[in-house]
């Protein structure tokens, strides 16, 4: 053993971890070199986050060894790991929004940093190092997502981290912010800092990573230099089968006009008017914060508006609550699955039935049989992976949770299906299934409004695309005729 400096910063050997009923990690081995950007890819439930939580000390492993920087690590706590030089930047940031940037960076270490003055000074230096000019006196609640990420990185640097684990760091960044992150990663690698980059997005793995480990069902499938792999191979290893296409063939079911929205105006939106056709997938493209979500929420009745005219099949409708929206044949798959879509402590079946309680009644009472039957039919037809209809929905993977929400709405037989980031945080295999569901829905006569931050997704699935910037519709395109570049230019505004 000894303490000679090896070229490995982290080595994990034969680590296993079980939870009641699941083997989350099964004999996992992994080595991360110094100054290497090491990607980890795998579908949800592959064991990526469990591994990460063992490394940081949130979970304890059942067996196996972990060696960090030449030292065996047995039991550890998140704070101990930090001090040892291992930082984790979680998908949901762990910053305290009511405190300032500087205070967050040196949280719990103000004395070490030399009081409040030293805290802000040192925090400012750290942020400067990574090319950020955020004021350290600003409250975290006032920061954008990418700025928060900067603060997290500065915090990791403040511990003189030797290894930084990033969990889905790009999930809510715009293209521009993503480029900044890329530069930052390269900069850290040059300093000899290792990075464990966990992501669903293969483009990023190819762009940033030197080595990639592919995980599936709690096993490491392979670790290889990125240069030796191509996209198809990687996806194949992730899902255990080969996927020829990431997207199904574009549905072509567009019919006559179905809904006309006119003069939609709120505090943020400026006189939005557009038409949605029957059987059409209409994509909304825009930066985060451009007003895409606000448009659909306003139409659906979830937000207050200053002015709005909605006509469906020529009939003028008054929609002032989601209940009205639902009654008029709309369905909303909201952007934040956990906060706005699911009732997490409840079962799969009650999450599916919750928009359809009238349908599962017998007389005045709810019928458990009918409810069960509705759930089982959807579990079968949408291929939802769940131990049973009564399992708590919180235990399902993201893709399967999303399918439950789609099932909930399919049961209402909506005319207009609004999908806001329907594949966010979902693995490749499940994404494809969701695209297939969208295709089936429009072929059965529904229309879809699709919002997504993944440009390729919108461009591959939509029949027509509207670009939205700063609360306005700035353009209308046929994604088959116009290049992605052109569309993005218009979306930036």
């Amino acid at each position, binding site marked *: 053993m000894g303490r000679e400096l090896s070229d490995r910063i982290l080595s994990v050997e034969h680590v296993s971890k079980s939870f009641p009923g699941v083997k989350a990690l099964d004999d996992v081995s992994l080595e991360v070199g110094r100054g290497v950007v090491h990607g980890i890819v795998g579908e949800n439930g592959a064991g990526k986050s469990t591994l990460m939580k063992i490394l940081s000390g949130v979970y304890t492993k059942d067996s196996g060894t972990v060696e960090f920087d030449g030292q065996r690590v047995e039991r550890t706590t998140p704070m101990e790991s930090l001090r040892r030089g291992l930082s984790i930047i979680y998908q949901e940031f762990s910053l305290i929004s009511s405190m300032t940037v500087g205070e967050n960076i040196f949280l719990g270490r103000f004395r070490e940093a030399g009081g409040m003055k030293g805290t802000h000074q040192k925090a400012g230096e750290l942020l400067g190092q990574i090319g950020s000019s955020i004021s350290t006196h600003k409250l975290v609640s006032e920061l954008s997502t990418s700025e928060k990420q900067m603060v997290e990185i500065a915090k990791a640097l403040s511990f003189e981290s030797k290894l930084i684990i990033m969990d889905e760091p790009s999930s809510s960044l715009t293209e521009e912010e993503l480029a900044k992150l890329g530069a930052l990663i390269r900069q850290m690698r040059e300093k000899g800092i290792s990075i464990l980059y966990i992501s669903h997005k293969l483009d990023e793995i190819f762009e940033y990573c030197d080595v990639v480990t592919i995980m599936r069902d709690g096993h490491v499938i392979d670790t290889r230099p990125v240069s030796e792999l191509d996209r198809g191979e990687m996806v194949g290893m992730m899902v255990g089968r080969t996927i020829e296409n990431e997207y199904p063939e574009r549905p072509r079911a567009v019919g006559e006009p179905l809904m006309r929205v006119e003069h939609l105006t709120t505090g943020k939106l400026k006189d939005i008017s557009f038409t949605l056709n029957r059987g059409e997938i209409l994509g909304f493209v825009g930066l985060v914060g451009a007003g895409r979500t606000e448009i659909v929420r306003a139409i*659906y009745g*979830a937000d207050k508006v200053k002015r709005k005219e909605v006509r469906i099949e020529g009939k003028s409708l008054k929609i002032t*609550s*989601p*209940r009205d*929206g*639902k*009654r008029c044949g709309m369905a*909303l798959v*909201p952007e934040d699955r956990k*906060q*706005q*879509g*699911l*009732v*997490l*402590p*409840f079962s799969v079946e*009650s999450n599916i039935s*919750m*928009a359809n*309680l*009238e349908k599962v*009644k017998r007389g*005045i*009472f*709810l019928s458990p049989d009918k409810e069960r039957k509705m759930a089982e039919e959807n579990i079968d037809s949408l291929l939802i992976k769940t131990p049973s209809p009564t399992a708590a929905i919180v235990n399902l993977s993201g893709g399967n949770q999303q399918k439950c929400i789609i099932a*909930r709405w399919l049961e209402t037989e909506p005319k207009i299906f609004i999908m806001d980031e329907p594949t966010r945080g979902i693995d490749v295999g499940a994404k494809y299934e969701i695209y297939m569901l969208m295709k089936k829905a429009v072929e059965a006569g529904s229309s879809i409004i699709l919002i997504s931050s993944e440009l390729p997704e919108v461009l591959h699935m939509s029949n027509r695309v509207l670009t939205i910037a700063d609360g306005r519709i700035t353009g209308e395109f046929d994604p088959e005729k116009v290049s992605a570049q052109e569309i993005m230019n218009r979306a930036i505004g």
Partner: protein
Amino acid sequence: MDAGKRIGNFVKDNLVLVTIMILVLVTAVLEPKFLTIANMGNLMNQFGPLSFVALGMTLAIIGGFIDLSVAGIVSLSAVFTLSMIDVLGQFGALLAGLLAGALLGLINAGVVVSCGALTQAKALFITYGLSAVFSASALLYTDGATQHMSHLENRTDLFQAIGSGRMGFVPVSFLLFVVIMALLHLFLIRTQTGREICLGGANITAAQLAGIPVKRRIALVFTLSGVLSAFGAIVLFSRITTASPLLGANYETNAILAVVVGGTSLSGGRGSVIRTMLGVMLVILLSNCLNLLGVSTYLQSVLKGAVLIIAIWIDRRRVK
């Protein structure tokens, strides 16, 4: 070791029942008369006012709120109902009292909804504030004087029956409690409205976006909590035959204690009125047992607080 594990799991899943059994055993050893039929009747009698308030609190907590105004509602509806007996007769007064409870609950809901205080924490402060308003109104209404049933001219036998009547050895109030509890249980688990209350309690945003009329459900939850508190108040003053404008003090604490000890989750959405019955039972047995052991009432309050904290701790662990 398998058997040991199974027993361990049983204890974990049925902690309240196990605790109740232990308390029964301890009490039975301390007081051999404890297990007589007559004493069972007494025990049921102790369910009394608290059990109704706790039922209302259960609905509120499952619906995602904590209704701190029940203390004020108990005080105000007690003095109001009693004063109405001479005006409206006893049936009219009973009805007026329950309506008053409903109205006060509706005021809660109205303020909560119109302030947009749809989170548990925000609504907590609103109901706390309204509790002070209701309690003060009780004092204003009576000029601070305690009202006596014996001073009334109209008949009060209906109230006497509700407060202290018995059928056989079973108190009427306990029978009413069991009937209302059963109806509420059916309501919560087998009706659409009941399910919508649970869903809204667990995640109000998701429920609203799924087309559930959450504001109307909130109104219903607080209204029912108000009616049940008023009924608790009626049982209470009928039993002690006087109604002081401070009658309801501390009822919110004991009701929350019973609900949470029973195992209804403070995070909303999950729980049951039957669990609350067990919770009330546990609270009664505990004070019974502590009385027999000669523990002072001050120390008993400390212990009750400790039990509440333990119950919340267990609830939190269960959520994880």
